[in-house]
Structure formats: C-alpha cells, structure tokens
C-alpha cells in the first residue's frame, strides 16, 4: 500500500523533473536565439518547454489538493484504487507497444530504403526497444531498492 508521504514525495519529484526539463528546453531556445547557431526551427524548443511546464503545474495543483484534502489522499493511496490504476497503466503500455511495433513494421516495409539509414527509422526502432525493455529495467531497479 502506497503511503501518503510516498505519494507526496513522488509528486514533488515529478514537479522537479518537469521544471528542470522545461528550464533546459527554454535555455536551449534562449541560447539558439542569442547565437548564430541555427536548428531546424528554434521556436520548437520554446513550444516544447511548455509541455513539461504544464505537467509541473498539473502536479503542483495535485500536490496542493492532496495537502488540503485528506480524503483525496486516501483515494490516491487506497491499495485497490492503486492496483486498478497500475492495471490500467499496464494495459495502456501493452497497447502502446503494439502501436509502436506496427509503426516500426509499417515504416520498414513501406519505406525499405530508410532501413538502417534514416534518423526516423532509428528513432522508431529505439522507442520500440525502449518500450519493450524499460519495464524489465524498472523491475530490476525496484528489486534492488
């Protein structure tokens, strides 16, 4: 059963990581704007920095809600609800793995000349492998801790 303190700690970590990611992307945009270095489109970094910022804001609001209302905390830490959420997450991961596999397969067969050559093909393969191996990796990390 997840404890309330653990939940608050996890939410704080999510806020920190999201803010850091947002800051890095924003700083990249500032550097690219200030120097003569040109990426495909510098504004993309600014737009991307808004995504983790929004995630951090959402987590911050969740944290405030958790700290103000103990009943919300209980529903977030209830072992049955946590188990239901984990099951839904696992099913969503399986679905995403399927979609990624089909994308990889489709890409390879539709544009065979890109295989082993284009950045897009390597990205598709990398994301597919990450989705397949990251659950095992995290299981090992959880076992050790």
């Amino acid at each position: 059963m997840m404890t309330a303190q653990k939940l608050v700690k996890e939410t704080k970590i999510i806020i920190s990581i999201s803010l850091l990611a947002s800051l890095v992307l924003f700083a990249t945009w500032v550097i690219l704007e200030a120097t003569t270095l040109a990426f495909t489109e510098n504004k993309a970094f600014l737009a991307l920095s808004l995504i983790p910022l929004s995630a951090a804001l959402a987590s911050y609001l969740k944290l405030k809600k958790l700290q103000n209302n103990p009943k919300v905390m209980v529903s977030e830490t209830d072992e049955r609800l946590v188990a239901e959420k984990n099951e839904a997450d696992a099913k969503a991961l399986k679905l995403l793995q399927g979609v990624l596999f089909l994308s990889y397969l489709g890409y390879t067969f539709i544009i065979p000349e890109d295989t082993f050559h284009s950045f897009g093909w390597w990205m598709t393969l990398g994301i597919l492998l990450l989705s397949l191996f990251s659950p095992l990796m995290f299981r090992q990390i959880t076992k050790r801790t």
Partner: protein
Amino acid sequence: MQLLKNKKIKIARVEADLSQEQLAERVGVTRQTISLIESGNYNPTLKLCTSICKALNKTLNDLFWEE
C-alpha cells in the same frame, strides 16, 4: 473466481460499532473498498487484512480463515 462474502468482517465491524466509513478511515482506504471486501468482490492484501484486524481488535484467523 467469485469470492465468498466475508460476513465475519461485517459482524466484527457491527460489534465494534463502526460504520464502513469509520473503518475505512481507520485503515486508510475508501469506504467502497471496505464494502467490496465485505461483499467478497475484492481480495485485500495481507497488509490491509492485518490493518483491519487491528482496527477491529481481532486476529487474522477470526476474520479471514475459511474452514
């Protein structure tokens, strides 16, 4: 598999003069979870079982052992 209704918990809870809401609050879960355990539709973890036993001043044998 359909779990058997756990009447022992309901009886112990009523004997302790607690509502589902009060028991849920003591063990740190929602009222719906207690309701589902009593109706046999949720199989609680050992940790939750022991919390319920402590809250109702009973043993695991008293509440969860099936003859």
